[in-house]
């Protein structure tokens, strides 16, 4: 007999504020926005406050939807809630125009194909709605 379980389930409703809201609005419109800190670093995804100083960030910078893999880990058995059902890599991707990499899924077929320094591009979800999963994943640039 399987052990009894209960499911703690709730549909949270998160208000976004100006920075996260603008970024997710951009994703819905298939555009990626970064934000420049006081010291000039362009953060993607945009953080509301400078991680170094705590000061508010306000200076928007559009960035490309393609960039370079700075780090990755290959996962053979994805979790049921994760972005891809088949084996994939979690990758830190520095988009062209950004100074910091963003973390998302990378669909590149096999572990051997995943490389630091490889060029990748956003694969957009069929339906974009203003959510981090509007980026379905990254894929190798053609």
């Amino acid at each position, binding site marked *: 007999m399987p*052990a*009894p*379980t*209960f*499911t*703690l*389930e*709730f*549909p*949270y*409703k*998160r*208000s*976004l504020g100006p920075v996260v*809201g*603008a970024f*997710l*609005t951009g994703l*819905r*419109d298939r555009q990626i926005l970064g934000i420049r800190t006081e010291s000039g670093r362009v953060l993607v995804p945009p953080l509301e406050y400078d991680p170094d100083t705590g000061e508010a960030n306000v200076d928007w910078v559009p960035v490309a939807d393609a960039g370079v893999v700075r780090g990755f880990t290959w996962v053979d058995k994805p979790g049921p809630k994760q972005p891809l059902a088949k084996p994939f890599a979690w990758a830190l991707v520095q988009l062209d125009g950004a100074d910091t990499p963003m973390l998302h899924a990378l669909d590149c077929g096999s572990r051997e194909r995943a490389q630091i320094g490889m060029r990748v591009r956003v694969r957009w979800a069929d339906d974009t*709605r*203003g*959510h981090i999963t509007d980026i379905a994943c990254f894929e190798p640039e053609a």
Partner: protein
Amino acid sequence: MPEPVTEMKQMVALEYAVRPSPLTLDYLGKLRAGRIVGHRCPECELVYVPPRGFCQICVVPTQTPEHEVAIADRGTVTSFTVVDPIQYHGQTEREVYALASILLDGASGTLGQQRIADVPLEQVRMGLRVEAVWIPEAERKSDLRDQGAMLGGSIRHWRPSGEPDTPLSAFQEHIV
């Protein structure tokens, strides 16, 4: 241009195991057989229902069968409220109902979150004597997550027993 995005939804659904202790299983088994039991602390002699395996005041262990005592399926309403259920996600209660704290005969403390029925809501009162209305034995189940001392799987609700009310002064020290 469509409206800016100001909100996002996130469904969080996490599964948890429910893994009761042998003591809890024993308590639930006895409940399904129609018996309520408690543990008497060997030091302070207070009787806990349901048994917890230790006395929270003396922090000494208690065990079945050494410290087990039988508890009556009747007692006194020491306090109560009438609830108009808030319709949150997952709530299935729809009607107004009475919830009471009951001091069972033989227990040292009251049990909270006990449903009172078979009586007009305005007649529910402090001091009211009540008795258990058991679910037919074949339909009883172990409800580990029931908030009313896990009694809900075996006891449908409590109803007036017809005995005279207990005077307030007799349970001043047992409110909840």
